[in-house]
């Protein structure tokens, strides 16, 4: 019996591995989509990053006693994560005006009547930032001067009065910052898992004499139906697992998307998610009167609906469904797969992760049970 099972399993495995559809839909398509996500998010990240603003400070007319201003500007121009300006100290205004005209600086600061003022050529984000800095500096300076004038005894406490310490402490649930970006990749993986539905559909269809000539040939053979299902399903699930693991490895190591500290639970999510996808496809294949093409369309359409509500196309829709219709969120296998991946990324504990895995396993078991019960002695009204 084992030899027979092995023969059926290995031949089925060969069929899957040689199938162009398998490579296109299970490997090439998700890898291309993940790469597309990667480049899209990379350019968005670059756009979001604050660029260092080139400015100039004209020393001409700067009061000698106002060294605090140049010290502040210098400290904000020091190279590092908190660098805000790239500053040129220029002796004459004419040179600064030329630099501004040439577009080499976004604005320059010059003293007039003992006060620093800003000169810009156009409005923009950088110009607003320079203006905000200058306003804040002048306001702080003015407040300090007032305090010193009216309460000179507070001079020693001035630094602590103007320090920007917060009294609340931010405690994160995780070492990782919350982000919706990774959800797109997780939803993509959920889609690959749910595409396992095609494996499940094919396994049962190739056993149904009304849907395929191969199904008829298998049905008239003395091989018991459960053996055929087991061998075919094992092969289908094996290639599905292979595909999901390869896609996870690609996303993790080539695209550098975080799956949390360990990769094994991510594989487990992919494996259990694939099982759910395969079981879903098997369940769709049960109705006797539906044609194979209609069943294929149903698997693809329902998978896309599941993935849409899991956040593949729109960020945050999964959280919206979870708030407004939590039951729908819990019976959507794609949403559970996404949540399981996100739990690995964000939470330091595994409680929520294993809850998702348990729900996925329960769904698989129910769908698999209904399928086996329905097709075990199926004969047809018509072929």
């Amino acid at each position, binding site marked *: 019996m084992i030899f027979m099972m092995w023969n059926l399993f290995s031949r089925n495995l*060969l069929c899957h591995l040689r199938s162009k559809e398998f490579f296109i839909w299970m490997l090439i398509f998700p890898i291309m989509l993940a790469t597309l996500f990667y480049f899209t998010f990379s350019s968005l990240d670059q756009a979001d990053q604050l660029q260092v603003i080139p400015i100039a400070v004209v020393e001409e007319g700067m009061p000698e006693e106002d060294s605090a201003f140049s010290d502040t500007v210098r400290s904000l121009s020091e190279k590092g994560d908190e660098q805000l300006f790239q500053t040129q100290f220029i002796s004459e205004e004419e040179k600064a005006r030329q630099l501004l005209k040439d577009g080499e600086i976004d604005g320059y600061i010059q003293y007039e009547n003992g006060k620093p003022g800003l000169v810009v050529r156009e409005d923009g984000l950088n110009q607003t930032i320079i203006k905000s800095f200058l306003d804040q500096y002048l306001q702080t300076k003015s407040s300090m001067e007032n305090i010193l004038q009216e309460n000179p005894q507070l001079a020693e406490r001035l630094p602590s009065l103007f320090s920007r310490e917060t009294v609340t402490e931010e405690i994160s649930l995780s070492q990782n910052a919350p982000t919706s970006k990774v959800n797109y990749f997780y939803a993509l993986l959920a889609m690959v898992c749910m595409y396992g539905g095609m494996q499940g559909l094919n396994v049962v269809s190739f056993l149904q004499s009304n849907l395929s000539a*191969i199904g*008829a*040939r298998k*049905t008239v*053979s003395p091989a018991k139906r459960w053996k055929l299902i087991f061998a075919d399903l094992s092969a289908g699930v094996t290639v599905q697992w292979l595909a999901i693991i390869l896609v996870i490895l690609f996303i993790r190591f080539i695209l550098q998307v975080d799956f949390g500290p360990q990769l094994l639970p991510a594989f487990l999510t992919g494996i259990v998610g694939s099982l759910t996808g395969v079981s879903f496809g098997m369940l769709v294949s049960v109705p006797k009167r539906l044609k194979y093409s209609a069943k294929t369309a149903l698997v693809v359409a329902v998978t896309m609906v599941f993935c849409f509500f899991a956040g593949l196309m729109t960020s945050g829709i999964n959280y919206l469904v979870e708030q407004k219709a939590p039951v729908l969120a819990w019976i959507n296998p794609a949403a559970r797969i996404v949540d399981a991946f996100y739990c690995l990324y964000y939470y330091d504990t595994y409680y929520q992760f294993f809850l998702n895995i348990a729900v996925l396993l329960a769904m698989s078991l129910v769908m698999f049970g209904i399928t086996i019960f329905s097709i075990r002695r199926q004969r047809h009204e018509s072929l």
Partner: protein
Amino acid sequence: MIEVKNLVKRYGDLIALDHFNLNVRSGEIFGLLGPNGSGKTTAINCMLSLLKYDKGEIRLFGEPMTPNNYRSKQKIGVVMQNVAVFNELTVYENIDYFCGLYVNDKRKRKELVEEALRFAGLEDFRKFIPKKLSGGLLRRLNIACGIAHKPELIFLDEPTVAVDPQSRNNILEGIKKLNREGATIIYTSHYMEEVEQLCTRIMIMDKGKEIATGTKEELKAMIRTGEKLTVELFDLPEPLLSEIRRVKDVIQASFDGEKLSVNCKTGSHAMISILDLLRQNGMHFGRVYSEPPTLNDVFLEITGKQLRD
């Protein structure tokens, strides 16, 4: 070997099998002949437990045939009308896969697969995938997949549809060889020449019913036509055609503008009388030939329509 009693199969209002009876003996090549839609494939699918039926009894190898009768299934080989092979597997792998549904022993299976390859003339194509095979070779692969495990009873459902003449001859010779090696064969076709050439007994079916059963000689003996006469001529006046119809032993005569066709009774000498009549009336005729009746004539005389209608 096969016993079917009062089988009834309905598709809604349509009766596909109407109290259908069949008895096939061991060692026969039994032909089911009938036009498309006559119920041949439905009968086979019911016998194989692929289809539910409304009434009747089916026994194979003396046992009731059910989906769980694995003992009987072990001895059956099936070649379906539609080619049933995996497009991703090679010729060898396909035969090995389907043989593996019946035979566990790897060494024995290897021998059987090699034998099936030789039988179907596919040795040179063992590493080909089905897409690379011609229509005829694909049909041969379909047959090889169905018979590789050396079944005692083989169902062949129109195995030569869309096959070139060379492959058809190859297939028919192969079927005869399988029969000589001990297999009982159920062969369905709407090609009467094939059935005549191959089958030891034939059942003619129409509208889900048995029309007649017997050897080809027995079937032909059931009808009045014993000889078919054809005379090539350019013109035949209607009065003369009526006179020909009145000649002794003439059953039916017709003229289509080029040929006079006459069906005569068995053992008659109507041909001489008809040719004399044509000569006497100054008719110039070309070739004259006589042939025995075909199964189509049997079908025509019993049902009033052509087999290929």
